[in-house]
């Protein structure tokens, strides 16, 4: 096996174009290597590549680690960051790794869907921006070409004032989400609901969004209907982590709970 440490983005891109396997925080790839599921011959280690570790309100470099996002990221993304693995994992794992792996359970991904973030992909011939729903195409499948690296997450400069994240799992730490969810709500009621672990890619519950966005102070019945719509719209499967039925139920409960948190903050 060969491991190289590129000194700059140009060298990293040349390595990727040459077929080398990108390694960021290693929290996904290294586990597969240790299990013998993957045996990369040539690895390009991005851990100390400062070129992709920039951070601003509208742009988060792919190499930014969860540890930093947990402290400095937008509210719901910071909340999500706090639930990624454990301190040691958050000191290693990056948002770019989460996006590149594109696990249906990626904890950072519902936020990207909720705020219509774009993914910046860069190759030797330049960069392109793909909206999240163009980028994520299936279970661990993305529109990234093999000569491209995920270099940044690009956010709008007017993120919703209220945004909340929560996840359900079998324990509090070191757990892969059974369901994770972000709800955002603007002053005028415009609401987005994004979920993870309930479909091949992160998804939005559009019908629930549409219904609740026109409700300024939803009644108990409206909140129940909102939860029901979310449960209906998700497309979970039964696997080793949970059942379809439970995930549907939990998706509705989580989305309603987060909406109520947004509404309480609105009232406060």
């Amino acid at each position, binding site marked *: 096996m060969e491991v190289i440490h590129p000194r700059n983005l140009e060298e990293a891109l040349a390595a990727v174009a040459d077929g080398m396997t990108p390694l960021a925080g290693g929290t996904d790839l290294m586990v597969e290597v240790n299990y013998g599921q993957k045996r990369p011959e040539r690895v390009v280690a991005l851990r100390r590549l400062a070129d992709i570790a920039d951070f601003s309100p509208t742009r988060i470099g792919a190499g930014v680690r969860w540890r930093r996002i947990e402290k400095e990221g937008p509210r719901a993304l910071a909340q999500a960051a706090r639930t990624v693995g454990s301190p*040691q994992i958050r000191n290693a794992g990056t948002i770019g790794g989460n996006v590149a792996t594109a696990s249906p359970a990626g904890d950072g991904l519902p936020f990207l869907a909720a705020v219509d973030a774009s993914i910046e992909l860069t190759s030797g011939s330049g960069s392109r921006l793909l909206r999240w729903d163009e980028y994520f195409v299936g279970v661990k499948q993305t529109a990234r070409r093999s000569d491209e690296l995920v270099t940044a997450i690009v956010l709008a400069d007017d993120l919703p004032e209220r945004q909340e994240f929560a996840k359900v799992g079998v324990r509090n730490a070191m757990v892969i989400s059974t369901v994770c969810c972000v709800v955002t709500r603007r002053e005028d009621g415009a609401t987005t609901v994004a979920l993870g672990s309930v479909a091949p890619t992160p998804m939005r519950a559009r019908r629930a969004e549409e219904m609740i966005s026109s409700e300024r102070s939803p009644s108990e019945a409206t909140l129940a209907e909102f939860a029901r719509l979310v449960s209906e719209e998700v497309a979970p499967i039964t696997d080793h982590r949970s059942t379809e039925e439970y995930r549907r139920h939990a998706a509705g409960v989580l989305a309603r709970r987060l909406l109520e948190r947004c509404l309480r903050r609105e009232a406060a």
Partner: protein
Amino acid sequence: MKISLTINGREVSADVEPRTLLVHFLREDQGLTGTHIGCETSYCGACTVLVDGKTVKSCTMFAVQADGASITTVEGLADNGQLHPVQEGFWERHGLQCGYCTPGMIMSAVGLLQEKQSPSEDEIRHAIEGNLCRCTGYHNIVRAIEYAAAKMRGEEPPPPDWEEEEVSV
């Protein structure tokens, strides 16, 4: 592949096979067997070390990725035979039974106390969430870290809870 790094304050140069995990390099090449291997999948935290001051799980990092870095293992904590306050806390408050998780648990506690001088119980439990212990039920580990935090602030540690007055029935 040649790497140079600092381990517990000592400059080290070595020629390592790129597939070598950092934890294997520390244990087998450097003889620092204080860092344990539990799961090799980053779940258990037994292999926690500090890399450039931050806790990481050394079973999910290649040794070559530590080129140029400064590593602290549990062996690097004591100062001339004087236990680090966290080590002393685990000793004084029975923060271990079998001891397998202890080096990793101690390194996570050191990582926490570098950032927070007076962590709450919640913050302590959050900080060790990536370290599994199958013996203690964590209670005495939390007390051990509280002991260390007090010591490091120059205060008298809280008394052990087995000395707390018994409630009369």
